[in-house]
């Protein structure tokens, strides 16, 4: 799914965040989004994901406006990860449960991703007792397993150790192998991840 | 059976239903129940629990007892919220019938009001036994007097007595409670004051209060209970037959003798004296 952002402007109670942003993001690519604190990166992603309303301008998904079908194909990973009041396993499995009955395949899939991010040992742990980085891992796993066509990650690696960052790079690359997947990542980190980006936007 | 005869012998539509009911099933619950609005004294003394079951199995009709002050009971009748009233404020009752709210008023039973006061009280003595004297004495000595103050039959009676004594009761010594008889007795006991109560309620509360009868017997203290079937024109939901049955029953010999019996073994004397006519 392709994204076209034109003349996007956002005010929070008449305090300007950004103005007349134009961007194009095409399926199959990985985009980086950088900018100073408060430049509006998260806000932009939240607007794209339909969590917030822009003040002016519009976002088009394959030339169409935002609607339920888009909603189902897009995921935004919050900058501050939210853990459901469930075990780690159930947290990660959740996106699959809402589609249809869980089968062996789903469980396997979940276990696999947990192992990759070495969360398996926390399988039955209460997710809200995890460490900062572990929480980010969980919310990432949850987003990846959902397999959205558009994946918006808000500083996913902020609290993660080097090892994990590399794992994630691998995952993103793997994900991109399927065509028509679009991934966009906000990061302040100047070195790692960069090699993933087909293009970097600055706010 | 009797019940079917009753319901066939009438024309109002609510009981046409009954007829059908009582034909295919004559069990108690099936016949339209009646709402009896009465005073707290008849329920709190336990009389109704004692006699009502007899009516229910005899006529196969349930009685829903709403125990409130006489004032409210009359209002309920006036608004057609109740089918039959069992109250004790003769003058207001007659006015009630006059105004066409009720069909007719019948005497059912009586007992009497008694003045209650703390044990070993000295204020009231033999020569001040007449109701008016008692009240005058209390007023003069400013002895605490707890009044129902709830527009009930007892309250109406008390007010009329003050009327007769020509005293306008007011001041700290005159406590207007706005409560039922039982609670008022509790308060009088608690405040070591005087109050006017119907004998039945007093006897049923005797065991747990330090109050005793300080004056009684004045014919002014006569307490007549009357039954009034509410005028069916008040509301098309009024259960006319039920009301009639109830009146017929309560004035009947069986019930009258039950009233006579009630309380004898428990209190050594009957709480109400039947005088149904």
């Amino acid at each position, binding site marked *: 799914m392709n994204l076209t952002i034109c003349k996007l402007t956002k005010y929070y109670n008449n305090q300007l965040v950004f103005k007349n942003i134009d961007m194009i993001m095409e399926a199959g690519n990985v985009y980086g989004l950088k900018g100073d604190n408060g430049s509006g990166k998260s806000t932009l992603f939240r607007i794209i*994901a*339909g*969590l917030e309303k822009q003040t002016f301008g519009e976002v088009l998904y394959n030339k169409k406006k935002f609607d*339920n079908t888009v*909603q*189902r*194909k*897009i*995921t*935004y*990973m*919050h900058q501050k990860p*939210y853990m*459901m*009041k*469930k*075990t780690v396993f159930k947290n990660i499995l*959740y*996106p699959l449960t*809402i*589609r249809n009955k869980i089968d062996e395949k789903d469980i396997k899939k979940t276990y696999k991703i947990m192992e990759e991010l070495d969360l398996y040992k926390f399988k039955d742990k*209460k997710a*809200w*007792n995890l460490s900062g980085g572990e929480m980010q891992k969980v919310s990432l796993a*949850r*987003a990846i397993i*959902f397999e*959205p066509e558009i994946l918006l990650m808000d500083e996913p690696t902020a609290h993660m150790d080097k090892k994990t960052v590399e794992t994630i790079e691998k995952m993103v690359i793997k994900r991109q192998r399927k065509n028509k997947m679009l991934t966009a990542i906000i990061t302040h980190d100047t070195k790692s991840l960069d090699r993933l980006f087909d293009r970097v936007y600055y706010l | 059976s009797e019940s079917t005869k009753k319901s066939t012998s009438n024309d109002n539509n609510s009981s046409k239903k009954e007829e059908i009911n009582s034909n295919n099933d004559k069990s108690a619950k099936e016949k339209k129940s009646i*709402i009896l609005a009465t005073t*707290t004294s008849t329920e*709190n003394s336990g009389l109704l*629990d004692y006699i009502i079951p007899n009516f229910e199995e005899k006529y196969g009709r*349930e009685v*829903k*007892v*709403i*125990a409130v002050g006489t004032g409210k009971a009359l209002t309920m009748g006036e*608004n*057609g*919220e109740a089918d039959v009233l069992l109250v004790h404020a003769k003058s207001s009752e007659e006015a009630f019938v006059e105004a066409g709210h009720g069909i007719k008023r019948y005497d059912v039973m009586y007992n009497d009001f008694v003045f209650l006061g703390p044990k070993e009280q000295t204020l009231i003595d033999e020569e001040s036994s007449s109701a008016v004297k008692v009240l005058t004495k209390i007023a003069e000595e400013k002895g605490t007097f707890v009044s129902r103050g709830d527009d009930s039959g007892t309250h109406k009676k008390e007010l009329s007595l003050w009327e007769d004594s020509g005293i306008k009761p007011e001041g700290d010594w005159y406590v207007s409670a706005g*409560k*039922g*008889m*039982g*609670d008022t*007795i*509790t308060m009088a006991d608690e405040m070591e004051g005087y109050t006017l109560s119907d004998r039945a309620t007093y006897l*049923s*509360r005797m*065991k*747990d*209060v330090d109050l005793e009868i300080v004056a009684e017997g004045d014919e002014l203290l006569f307490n007549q209970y009357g039954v009034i079937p509410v005028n069916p024109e008040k*509301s098309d*939901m*009024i259960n006319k037959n039920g009301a009639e049955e109830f009146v017929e029953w309560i004035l009947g010999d069986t019930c009258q003798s039950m009233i006579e019996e009630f309380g004898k073994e428990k209190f050594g004397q009957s709480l109400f004296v039947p005088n149904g006519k």
Partner: protein
Amino acid sequence: MKYILEGFFEAFKLILSCDTEVYQIIGFSLLVSMTSTIISSIIGIPIGFFTGLHNFKFKDYYSRILFTMMGLPPVVIGLLVALFLARRGPLGSFQLMYTPIAMIIAQTILVTPIITGNIFNYTKEHGPIIYEVSKTLGCEFWQRVIFLFQEMRIIIFIGMAQGFGRAISEVGAIMIVGGNIKGHTRVMTTFIAMNNSMGNYGISIAMGIVLLTISFFLNTLMYRLIERDIK
């Protein structure tokens, strides 16, 4: 003092005595109050969610009105319901006065604001992020609602427990619309009130103890149901 001990003693007698009337009163109280609580939840929880999540004009007037309604006086509710259901009243023809239905109506009016208020407050603070997450994970409308339920089950429990507690313990409304009719509309509280004015303090306290014990065990039960994997 002695009444209180006596009360505990009587409480046991009450339970053990196979006095069907007592059981019937207890069962009936539970029936009425539970029904009202459930109806109130069905009305109140969605309203709480909705008003908590969305921003609308006068939202804080709304919230203050809600708080005020959480303190609706039972007697007033009872009276109003009575006026509507009375034979003379607009709904008189249904003959609901002095019936369990009237009692349930009154208690529902009493309890709904309590449940709504609890849900509303919590949703206002925690709802948005929860709702966002459910959206980003591709939940349909109904799945979002279910998601909210799951994540808020604690506060929902608290709200319902509070509502039920209020219902089972109030006497003002239920006395007026129920009429405390023996064998029909007599519940624990009206039973207590009546025995009070009859001077049977022991049995009043006994029934009070029974009442509290029951609602404690009900809370425990409900709590167990939602407790699973929560700190």
